[in-house]
C-alpha cells in the first residue's frame, strides 16, 4: 500500500446540528485511507448518514473541516467534488434508459461519444448487465437497478464512492450475493468506498474497517474481527453480534484482571477494558460461543446454571439458561454428539476464561 495516503479523507472535529440545539454529529475525527472499504455502522439516528451526506456535500458541517485528498472541501458544492454516490433507493432517472443513466455523468463532463460508449460497455460488463443498455429502470428487477446505480457511480472513475444503505431494499439472498459482488468490485478497482449501513452482517462481510456510530460519535473504529472479539465499550459489544451481559461493581482492580461482584453477590474475574477504579459499576460482556459446558480443565470462572430453554438451529443449538440472576444467558452449543445430553431443567456447570469476559462501562 505504499504511496497510498492514510488520510485520503479526513474529518477534523466535525460537528453537525440541524436545529441549532442538538448535535447529530459530535466532534468527529475520522481518517479514511486511500483504497479502503470503510463502513459507517450504527443504529438509525446515530449520525452515520449525516456524516456521509457531509462528505458528499449535501449537508454542511456546523463546525470543523473535512479534507478530501488533502484539500478542504467544506465550501465546494457537491457537483464539483467528483465523488460517486449510490443512494438508498438507487435514484435512477426513471425517464432515461440504462445507457442514458450511465452516460449522464460522462456527458456532464463533456467526454466524447465514442469514449462514453466504451466506458459504459466496460462498466456494464463489470456489473454483468451487458445487453441491458436500452431498458428503462422500471423494466429492471431490484437487483438489476442496484447494479445500474453502482455502475453509474463508478462510470466516471471517481476516486471516492459513497454508498448509503444500497442493499437495504433487496431481499436477503440477493443482498448477500450483492455484498460479495460489491466487495469484488472494490478489490478490482481499488477505489475508496465509504459505506453506510445498519446491518452488522453486511459491515462485517465487506469492510476493511468499520466505524461504529452511536449518539453522534464513533464508538470504535477497527477491523471486523477486532470489533467482534475486542469491543471497547458496552454499546459496541451489544451492537455487534450476540452478547451476554452481567452488571456488577468492581471490587478489585489489578493489571489484566478485575474482580466484579454481580448483583447476586458472586465474583466474576474479568478482563478490565473500560473500568478505571474499584467501586465503579461495570457491565460485563461475554460472547455465547466462549462459554464451555461442564469444563474439565482449570478455568477462572465456573458457575452452576439451570437450562430454561433449548432451541434447535440445525448446525447448533441455542440454550437459554439462568446464570447469576441473568435469565437470558444464551449458549451456542455445536451439534456434536457429545453435547446431545442436554435436557430442560438440568443443572450444568459453565466456565469461561477471564480473557474472554470483558468488563466494560456501565
Amino acid at each position: 500500500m505504499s504511496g497510498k495516503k492514510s488520510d485520503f479523507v479526513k474529518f477534523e472535529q466535525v460537528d453537525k446540528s440541524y436545529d441549532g440545539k442538538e448535535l447529530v454529529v459530535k466532534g468527529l475525527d475520522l481518517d479514511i485511507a486511500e483504497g479502503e472499504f470503510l463502513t459507517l455502522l450504527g443504529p438509525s439516528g446515530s449520525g452515520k448518514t449525516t456524516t456521509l451526506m457531509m462528505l458528499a456535500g449535501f449537508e454542511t458541517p456546523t463546525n470543523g473541516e473535512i479534507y478530501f485528498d488533502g484539500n478542504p472541501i467544506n465550501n465546494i458544492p457537491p457537483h464539483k467534488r467528483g465523488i460517486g454516490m449510490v443512494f438508498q433507493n438507487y435514484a435512477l432517472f426513471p425517464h432515461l434508459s440504462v445507457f442514458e443513466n450511465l452516460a449522464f455523468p460522462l456527458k456532464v463532463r463533456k467526454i466524447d461519444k465514442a469514449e462514453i460508449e466504451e466506458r459504459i460497455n466496460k462498466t456494464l460488463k463489470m456489473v454483468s448487465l451487458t445487453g441491458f443498455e436500452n431498458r428503462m429502470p422500471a423494466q429492471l428487477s431490484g437487483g438489476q437497478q442496484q447494479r445500474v446505480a453502482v455502475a453509474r457511480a463508478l462510470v466516471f472513475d471517481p476516486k471516492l464512492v459513497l454508498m448509503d444503505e444500497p442493499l437495504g431494499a433487496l431481499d436477503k439472498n440477493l443482498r448477500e450475493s450483492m455484498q460479495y459482488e460489491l466487495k469484488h468490485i472494490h478489490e478490482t478497482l481499488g477505489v475508496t468506498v465509504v459505506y453506510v449501513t445498519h446491518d452488522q452482517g453486511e459491515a462485517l462481510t465487506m469492510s476493511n474497517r468499520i466505524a461504529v456510530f452511536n449518539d453522534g460519535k464513533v464508538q470504535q473504529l477497527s477491523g471486523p474481527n477486532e470489533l467482534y472479539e475486542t469491543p471497547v465499550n458496552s454499546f459496541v459489544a451489544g451492537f455487534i453480534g450476540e452478547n451476554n451481559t452481567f452488571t456488577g461493581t468492581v471490587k478489585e482492580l489489578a493489571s489484566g484482571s478485575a474482580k466484579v461482584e454481580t448483583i447476586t453477590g458472586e465474583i466474576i474475574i474479568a478482563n478490565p477494558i473500560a473500568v478505571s477504579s474499584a467501586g465503579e459499576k461495570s457491565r460485563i460482556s461475554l460472547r455465547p460461543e466462549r462459554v464451555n459446558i461442564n469444563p474439565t480443565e482449570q478455568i477462572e470462572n465456573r458457575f452452576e446454571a439451570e437450562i430454561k430453554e433449548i432451541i434447535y438451529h440445525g448446525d447448533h443449538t441455542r440454550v437459554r439458561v439462568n446464570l447469576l440472576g441473568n435469565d437470558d444467558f444464551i449458549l451456542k452449543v455445536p451439534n456434536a454428539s457429545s453435547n446431545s445430553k442436554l435436557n430442560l431443567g438440568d443443572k450444568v456447570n459453565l466456565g469461561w476464561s477471564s480473557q474472554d469476559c470483558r468488563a466494560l462501562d456501565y
Partner: protein
Amino acid sequence: MSAEIRTSDGELLSVKLRKVERRRRTTAFLLAAPLLFFIVFAYVIPIFQMLGRSVDNVQMNEFLSETHEVMQTWDGTEMPGEDVTSTFFYELKGLVEEKNHGKIATRLNYEKGGFTSLIKKTARKLKDFDENGNFLDQFIDVHKKWGDIEYWLALKRGTDAYHFRKYLTTFDYEQKFDGSIERIPEKKRINVTLWLRTIFVAAGVTFCCFLLAYPISHLLSVLPTRYSNLLMICVLLPFWTSLLVRTSSWMVLLQKQGVLNDTLVSLGIVADEGRLELMYNMTGTFIAMTQILLPFMVLPLYSVMKTIPPSLMRAATSMGATPFLAFRKIYFPLTYAGISAGSILVFVLSIGYYITPALVGGAKGTLISNRIAYHMQQSLDWSLATAMAAVLLVAVLIVYWLYNKIVGIDNMRLG
C-alpha cells in the same frame, strides 16, 4: 382433448364461471346506472339537442312547407311566379291566424335584414288582398321590399329544413344569394377577432399559470407537511369562494379608483392623472383569470412533483451536474406529465371562460363565450350561439386529441 371440468352439481365449470362473471358485471352496472342515466338525460341529450339547433330549421320548414316545396322549382333568376306567391299568401294567412307569423319574421330576419317589419306590415294587410290573382303585385303594393328578389330568395333559403350558414357566420363569412361564400364587410367582422383573442388569452393565461404555479408547486412538494398544508389551503382558498365574489374583488382592486391604483398613486409611482387602466381591457381579463385558474395548474403539478424523490437531484449533482443542469435534464422532464395535465386543464377552462371576462373584460377583453351568451340572451339567435358553441367544443376536442397524441392521456395526473 382434456377432460371437461365440472362443478359439484354437475354443471360445466366454464359455463358456471361465465355465469358468475355475468352476475358480477350486472351488479357493477346497476351500481353505476343512476349516474349513467343522470349524465345521459341531464347532460348528453340536452347538449346534442342544443347543438342540433345550429343546423336545425325544421320549424320554419313546417310553417311554410308548401311554399318551400313550390319554391324548389323556381330558379331564382327572376321574380317568382303566381304559384309561389299564392302558396305563400295562403300559408302566411294561416300563420297569422295562429299568431305564428312573429316567429317566421325573426327567423327570416337572420337571412335578410328588414324582414321583421316586412312580415308584420304584410300580416296586417292580408285581409285586404284580392284572392283572385296577381299576388306578387299586391305584395309589392303592401311593401315595396317584396319587389326586391333577394327577399324571395331569402324566403326560399330560410325555409330549408337544415342549413350550415351559422357556421359561416361563426367565422365571419356569409353565403350570398347566388351561392358564393364571401367574407362579410370588414367593419362587421367580429367573430374571428374574438376567436383569435380567445385562443391568445387562453394560451397566455395557461402560460402565466404555469410560470406562477411551478415554483409554488415545487415549494408545496418539498415543505414539511405542517407548512405545506397551510400553503395548500392558501392555494385552495379561491376554490371555496364564490367565483362572482372573487371576480368582484378583482374589480375593487383593479379599477381606476381602486386599491392598486390608489396605492401606486400614494407611493408616487404613477401620477394621479396617469392612473393605470387595469380593468375593462385585456389586462384585467388576464390578471383575474390567471388568479382564478391557478389552482388547476398547481394541483396536477404538485401531485407529480410529490412523487419525484429528492435523491434524484442529489444523484445528478453528485455526478457533476450543476444544480441548473440537474433541474433541466432531470427534474423538469419528470414534471412533463404535470405540466401537460395542468396546461390542458387551464387552457380548456379558459377557452370557454365567461363570467370573469364579462365583468372585468370590458369591450376589449371579452371572449367568444361572451359572444355566445350575447346571442343566447340578447340577439336570441340561438342557432348562431349553438354553432359557436359547437366550434368551441370541437376546438377543445382537438386540443384533447393532440394532447393524447403527444403526451398520452394515461400520463395525465390530476392531483
